[in-house]
């Protein structure tokens, strides 16, 4: 079993009973036997504890910010969040167009969550949840469902199917197959991109730290810092692009 971090240990101390009971109950359903935890005293893995920490930081930060909102003299946190929101609006306007504002909710949340998850590994005694494949896969699954839901919502059931089948009737069966396949491939590539970049980001300091333990790893930590922002940005552009492809009008 991997080394248990302090926050994971805390969560396991508090919630191990309930989580184990819940997972055992789910694993009794047909086909879901793999969710049964290997160790009933430590059912919560490190990456999930990391996600919970990020979730708590975002929610508590939002509650504190909500209580202090002010038009006359905005605080530093409010300014930062407003800048982030403005950045989201610009991105959505540029990628989706003028009717893209409703999609800011998901895209901004994803960006913030992934950015904080990426940066979490730079804090000593914590790890990067996105360097474990399940976390990016979860985010990519949300994006996949979101894009297809909005495709069906905007174009209607048959309209979206026709959109997937391409412009020409005689090539539609092939086109439909390729479109659906590439839709799933997008989920794979979103997952693989974030996960592989973050895995490389946390592994590089380890590798170079084993060669030269002084100074050199911090250079690669800086690289990880830059990469964290870049990958969060990419994970905001691509869902926006996919939504715009799914909901765009035919020309």
């Amino acid at each position, binding site marked *: 079993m991997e080394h248990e971090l302090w926050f994971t240990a805390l969560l396991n101390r508090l919630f191990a009973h309930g989580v184990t009971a819940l997972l055992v109950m789910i694993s009794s359903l047909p086909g879901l036997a793999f969710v049964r935890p290997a160790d009933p005293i430590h059912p919560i893995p490190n990456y999930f504890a990391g996600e919970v920490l990020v979730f708590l930081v975002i929610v508590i930060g939002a509650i504190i910010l909500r209580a202090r909102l002010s038009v006359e003299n905005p605080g530093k946190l409010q300014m930062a969040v407003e800048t982030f929101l403005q950045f989201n609006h610009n991105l959505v306007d540029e990628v989706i167009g003028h009717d893209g504002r409703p999609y800011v909710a998901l895209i901004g949340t994803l960006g913030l969550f992934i950015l904080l998850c990426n940066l979490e590994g730079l804090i000593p005694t914590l790890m990067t949840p996105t360097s474990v494949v399940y976390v990016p896969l979860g985010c990519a699954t949300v994006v996949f469902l979101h894009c297809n839901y909005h495709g069906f919502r905007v174009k209607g059931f048959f309209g979206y199917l026709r959109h997937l089948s391409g412009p020409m009737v005689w090539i539609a069966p092939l086109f439909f197959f390729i479109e659906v396949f590439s839709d799933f491939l997008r989920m794979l*590539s979103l997952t*693989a*991109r974030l996960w592989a970049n973050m895995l490389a980001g946390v592994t590089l300091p*380890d590798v170079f730290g*084993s060669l030269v333990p002084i*100074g050199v790893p*911090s250079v690669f930590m800086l690289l990880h810092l830059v990469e964290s922002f870049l990958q969060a940005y990419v994970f905001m552009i691509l869902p926006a692009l996919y939504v715009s492809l799914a909901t765009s009008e035919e020309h």
Partner: protein
Amino acid sequence: MKTKLIGLATFVIGLLYAAPALAAAAAPATSAGGGTDWGPIGAGVGMAIASGLCGLGQGRAAAGACEGVARNPGARPGIFLFLILGLVFIESLALYTFLIIFLKIK
């Protein structure tokens, strides 16, 4: 004073970096049949080819973007968006190689 303190803290963190990779013992490179295990070598060669060609492609993209911004600095935001998108899609091809290596080499 504050900058000096921050510098000192960075230096100490750099000094204190633990090296968990050292703790991993090297496994003998033999396959189940007793012969040499060529998997890691193939992984290294494959990843080298993938990242080399990906580097060529990304270099062309970055060169094109730089040239575009040099000719028309006003177009910077649009070019930046397309540069990032292009780099991301080029990079994902190398990442597929990484993925296959990760799946095949345990």
